[in-house]
């Protein structure tokens, strides 16, 4: 199970790293090399985003990666095939990240069955609040997959608890208002938000949105379980290219 895996890893490391890539960006082949490099560099979990034409909750960098992937011909079929290959090749937990329509059109049941078969551990669906996720929750449970839900700074305490009650594996804490890739200030305010999240659940906490360097990760160490490097992953790919030196030194630079 995802949660126990995370707890086990956290026993060994002060903080885990989860990175984010968009499937089919820059291409499937390069994506495979990036994953390989990251796994080698010691990344702990990865989000594989199936691109969607309307990525409403993503910031400009990931948005453009979505578009580019689609323009390059990334279909959902290709994405899931690729994900299966990846999950069977590398020994870290992979999660799908996508918008609800992708799952809905694929068929929730078919989607979950596939994930289970392919060895993916769970999914993050940013436009699916638990209230809209009745079918999704049931089906994910049927296939023993982790539906990862989201906390946000604007979520009141009672709601944090009810979201946590639906979430499996861990909870994804959005660091702040805004979309991914904008600046997050790692300050006391963030700290007290994380404390609120902690009080709401016993599940591991991942924190994302704007985590970009060692200082940010240092700030989060011992506050959350997983630091999520989303936009910054894509930026790195854009800047260093797939085979770049920094890509391979990834984890070292952050931890």
């Amino acid at each position, binding site marked *: 199970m995802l949660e126990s895996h995370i707890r086990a890893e956290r026993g060994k490391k002060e903080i885990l790293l989860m990175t984010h890539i968009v499937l089919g960006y820059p291409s499937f082949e390069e994506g495979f090399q990036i994953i390989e490099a990251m796994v080698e560099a010691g990344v702990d979990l990865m989000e594989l985003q199936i691109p969607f034409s309307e990525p409403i909750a993503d910031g400009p960098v990931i948005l453009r990666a979505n578009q580019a992937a*689609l323009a390059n011909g990334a279909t959902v079929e290709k994405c899931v095939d690729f994900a299966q290959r990846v999950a069977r090749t590398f020994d870290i937990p992979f999660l799908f990240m996508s918008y609800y329509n992708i799952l*809905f*059109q694929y068929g929730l049941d078919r989607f979950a069955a596939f994930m289970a078969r392919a060895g993916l551990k769970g999914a993050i669906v940013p*436009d699916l*609040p638990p209230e809209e996720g009745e079918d999704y929750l049931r089906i994910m449970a049927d296939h023993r997959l982790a539906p990862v839900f*989201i*906390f946000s700074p604007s*979520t009141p305490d009672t709601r944090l608890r009810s979201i946590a009650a639906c979430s499996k594996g861990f909870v994804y804490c959005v660091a702040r*208002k805004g979309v991914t890739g904008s600046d997050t200030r790692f300050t006391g305010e963030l700290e007290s938000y994380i404390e609120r999240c902690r009080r709401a659940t016993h599940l591991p906490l991942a924190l994302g949105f704007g985590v970009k360097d060692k200082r940010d990760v240092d700030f989060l160490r011992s506050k959350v379980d997983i630091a999520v490097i989303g936009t910054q992953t894509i930026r790195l790919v854009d800047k260093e290219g797939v085979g770049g030196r920094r890509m391979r030194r990834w984890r070292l630079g952050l931890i």
Partner: protein
Amino acid sequence: MINRGYYEGFGGAYIPEILVATFDELVDAFQKAKNDPHFWQEYTSLMSSFSCRPTPVTFAENLTRMFKGPRIYIKREDLNHTGAHKANNVMGQGLLVKRMGKKRVIAETGAGQHGVATATMAARFGFECTIYMGEVDLERQRPNVFWMERLGARVVPVLDGTRILKDAINEAFRDWVTHMDTTHYVLGTACGPHPFPEMVSYFQSIIGKEARKQIMDLDGRLPSRVYACVGGGSNALGIFSGFMDDPVALVGVEAGGKGLDSGEHASRLCSNDARIGVAQGYKTYFLQNSDGQMKKTHSIAAGLDYVGVSPILSHLKEAGRVRFEAASDEEVLNALSLTMQKEGLIPALESAHAFVQAFKEAPTLSSEDSILINQSGRGDKDIFTIADAFTDPKWREFIKKKAEGYHA
């Protein structure tokens, strides 16, 4: 979430968690306003002093004579301030924004109509205003951009996605998740997450309320059929709402573009190219491929080429309460010409879709019947499109000369 607003499976609120509290606040403010007996009064009095409500219903005597069928009546939303029914929605939301104590509004716009309406509302209420507009639309609709800017709004070109209306909606949501404490997102049609479909329809219901009373006064009985064009669905829901419980056929007309078989259209409710899905925060019929990626749309009317449609209309379609038809670009131009020359009215290209279907059906109805067409907006804003559509050579010469003057 306080409420998710479903219409027999359509609708909902598929929103990022960060916005849930904002939507709850909005739902709450809207419910309170709706339950406040003064609110509707405040709204109608604003609309009658700032716009010119009630807008008239005009008897189209010449068209009636020509088709030898039913008496044809036209509800004149074109006479609203800023030239379309969009004013109803923005002014209503403006009142809510004031109640919520927010100081900034944002909006998406495609045709530019909703952008101009929102910029106008913001000026009037003293709100800061940012309008998101796909770059493609922005290039096409420069006149409206000019007015938005002159009205004091910041118009932000959206360079991502297909750079049209749906992308502007996405971008507006991205702004909102960053500034929801100070900002209200004035969605322009009866789409998007709850409470927008309900709220926008509520404000637009002023059309139907007035129209029912007016046509009863004028004609002494209910119309047999009511026609409205359908982009997002707000003007249609607005006028239909007045006749929902009456034995009146309601007909929504979508953009048939170059034909339903051509793939170049924006028909979600009467073509086979659409399927139920979830995007932009709600569940409805979308023009999408089998993966769930949104398709390109086309219409001669910039205000109708949206990929989704109001979940309330999707429900009314399935329930059989509203019939949907499509009008092609070419039919639209013909109906527009006819209406101009016979009645001295210039419907917006959007509105002209409703006229097309009404004209198709009029000859089949009896002179005992009457029908009502919603003229959602005026066409004189569309001059660049209409002049191009009619390929008016003198207009081209005029533009060329203007351009030469600017090169000098």
